[in-house]
C-alpha cells in the first residue's frame, strides 16, 4: 500500500477539554505520520456524541449490585470513525444500547450535538449484533421501515430504498425475505436499513463477528466507502483489534468489569486500509498488548466463577 509510518498510532489528542481526567494516558513516541485521513477537525467543534461520566449498575439475580460501566467519558467528533474494543463482557455492547437510548444509564449524560438525550431517536441508529431484521418484511420493506415511522412520503421512500439498496448492492433482492439471504447479505440489509433513515450517528455492535473472513473483508471495504461517501459519524464496537485498526480513526480500549475507557489510540494510517497490511497488523499488535491484560483479567474472573461453583 502506501508508505507506512514507523509508529502508526499515537495517543489521542482530545478534541475539546474533557470533563474528567482519564486515569491512563498512553505516552507513545510522537507520531511521524503526516498522512492523516480524514484531515484533522478544528479543536472548537462540538462533539457529535459525548458521554459524560456514564455509569451503569444493575442487580444480579443473586442480589448483589454489579457495576457494569464506570464513569465513562468519551467524545466523538462529527464524521469520525471510532472503534471501541474490549474483552467480552466489558459492557461495550451495553454502552452502544445506552447511546441508542434503548436502556437508561444509572448516572451520567449522553450528549448529541451538545444536548442531552433520553430515549431512542432516529439521529442515532444502532445495528444490532443479531441484526434484528424483520422476517415478515421483504428486504425493501425492512429498508423502508424507519422512513415509514418518520412519515416520509411514499415517493421519497421509494427513491431512498432504491438508492440505499444499490449502495449495498442488493437492489435485485428487494423482494426477497430475510431468511432467503446469506449472512453477508443480511448484514448489508441491516446497513441499508440503518442508513436509509439517514442518521447522523451509526452505532454498530460487532456487526461482522459472525461472518467468514472474505465476506467480512468485502464489507469492511463497503463500510469504509459508505462512511467516506456519506460522512456519517460511526461508533463501531468489536472484540477484534485488527478490525478496529482497519476501520477506525481512533480506537478506544475498554477495561473489564467495571467497564472503563482505559486508553485511546489515534490510528494515523492512510486509507483505504486492508486487514493484511503490515502496518495495520503491527499497530493492532501494539494495542493488543494493552488489551491482553484485560482479557486475562476477564478470564481469571471466569475461572474464579467456575471454582466458586
Amino acid at each position: 500500500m502506501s508508505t507506512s509510518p514507523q509508529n502508526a498510532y499515537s495517543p489521542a489528542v482530545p478534541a475539546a477539554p474533557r470533563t474528567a481526567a482519564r486515569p491512563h494516558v498512553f505516552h507513545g513516541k510522537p507520531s511521524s505520520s503526516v498522512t492523516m485521513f480524514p484531515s484533522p477537525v478544528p479543536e472548537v467543534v462540538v462533539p457529535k456524541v459525548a458521554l459524560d461520566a456514564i455509569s451503569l449498575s444493575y442487580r444480579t439475580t443473586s442480589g448483589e449490585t454489579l457495576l457494569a460501566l464506570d464513569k465513562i467519558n468519551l467524545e466523538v467528533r462529527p464524521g469520525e470513525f471510532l472503534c471501541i474494543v474490549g474483552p467480552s463482557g466489558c459492557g461495550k455492547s451495553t454502552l452502544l444500547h445506552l447511546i441508542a437510548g434503548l436502556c437508561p444509564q444509572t448516572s451520567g449524560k449522553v450528549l448529541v450535538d451538545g444536548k442531552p438525550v433520553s430515549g431512542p431517536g432516529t439521529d442515532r441508529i444502532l445495528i444490532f449484533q443479531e441484526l434484528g431484521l424483520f422476517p415478515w418484511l421483504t428486504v425493501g420493506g425492512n429498508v423502508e421501515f424507519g422512513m415509514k415511522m418518520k412519515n416520509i412520503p411514499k415517493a421519497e421512500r421509494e427513491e431512498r430504498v432504491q438508492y440505499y439498496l444499490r449502495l449495498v448492492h442488493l437492489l435485485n433482492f428487494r423482494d426477497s425475505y430475510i431468511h432467503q439471504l446469506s449472512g453477508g447479505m443480511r448484514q448489508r440489509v441491516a446497513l441499508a436499513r440503518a442508513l436509509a433513515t439517514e442518521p447522523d450517528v451509526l452505532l454498530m455492535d460487532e456487526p461482522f463477528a459472525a461472518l467468514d473472513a472474505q465476506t467480512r473483508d468485502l464489507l469492511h471495504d463497503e463500510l469504509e466507502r459508505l462512511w467516506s461517501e456519506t460522512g456519517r459519524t460511526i461508533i463501531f464496537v468489536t472484540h477484534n483489534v485488527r478490525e478496529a485498526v482497519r476501520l477506525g480513526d481512533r480506537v478506544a480500549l475498554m477495561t473489564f468489569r467495571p467497564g472503563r475507557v482505559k486508553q485511546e489510540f489515534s490510528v494515523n494510517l492512510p486509507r483505504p486500509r486492508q486487514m493484511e497490511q503490515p502496518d495495520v497488523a503491527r499497530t493492532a499488535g501494539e494495542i493488543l498488548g494493552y488489551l491482553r491484560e484485560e482479557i486475562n483479567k476477564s478470564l481469571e474472573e471466569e475461572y474464579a466463577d467456575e471454582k466458586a461453583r
Partner: protein
Amino acid sequence: MKKLAKQFIFYSVLLGIWALLAKLRIWPPYLFPPPWGVGHALWDGFADHSFWIGIAVTMKRMIIGYSLSVVLGMALGLAVSSNKFLEETLGGLLVSLQSLPSICWIPLAVLWFGLSEKAILFVVLMGSLLSVTIAMEDGRKQMPKIYGMAGRNLGASGFRLFWSVLLPASLPFIVNGMKQGWAFAWRSLIQAEMIFLSLGLGQLLMMGRDLSDMNQVMAVMILIVILGYMVDGLIFRTMERRLQVKYGLTPA
C-alpha cells in the same frame, strides 16, 4: 403423490377390514354397523337435509362462539402479558382453570342462561377462551426481544410499535393460539350439543343413540371428524405453514 397413494391404500384396507368384520356378523348389525349401512345413513341424512341443517347450526354457533373467544382471549392475553401484577395473579388462575374440562361449565351455564343458545355459546367460550389467552400470553413472552428494540431504534413507538412490530413478530404464536382455541371450541361445542336438545351435529348423534340407529351415530361421528379436520388440518395448518415459510422458521 406418494403420500396420497399410501393414504389411499391405508384407508382402503381399513374399510376392507371393517366390511369383512361386518360381513362375518360376529356382532349384530345394530351394534356393529357395516360400512354400506353408514354410507346409506350419510346419503339419507344429506338427502333429507337434516345433516345440512345440523352442519349449518353447528358451524354458526362455532363461528360466533369462537370469534368471541378469540377477540376476548387476545385482549386478555395481551393484558396479562403486559402487566406484571395481572400476570402473577390472573395468569395463575387462568392456567389452573384450563385444567377444568369445558363440559364442567354446563351445569352453571344451564342455571344462568337456561337451555338456550346463550348457554351453548357460554360453554364454547369457556372452552376456548383460556387456551387462546394462554397461547397469546406465551407468544408475547417468547417473541424475541430484539424486534421490539429494533422497532424502537428505528423510531416506532406506541400504537405503531405494536401494530407494525410487536403484532407481526408474534403472529406465528397468535396463529398457534387460534388453532388451539379452535380445537377446544370444537370439542366443547359438540359436547354441549349432545346434552342440550338443540339441533346441531351433537344432537343428531344423540338422536341416533336414542333411536338405536348405529348407522346414524357412525355417520355423524364421521361427519364431525371430517369437519374438524377440514378446518384444523386444512385451514389452520396451511396458514401456519405459510407463516413459517415466510418467517423462515422452517426451510421453504
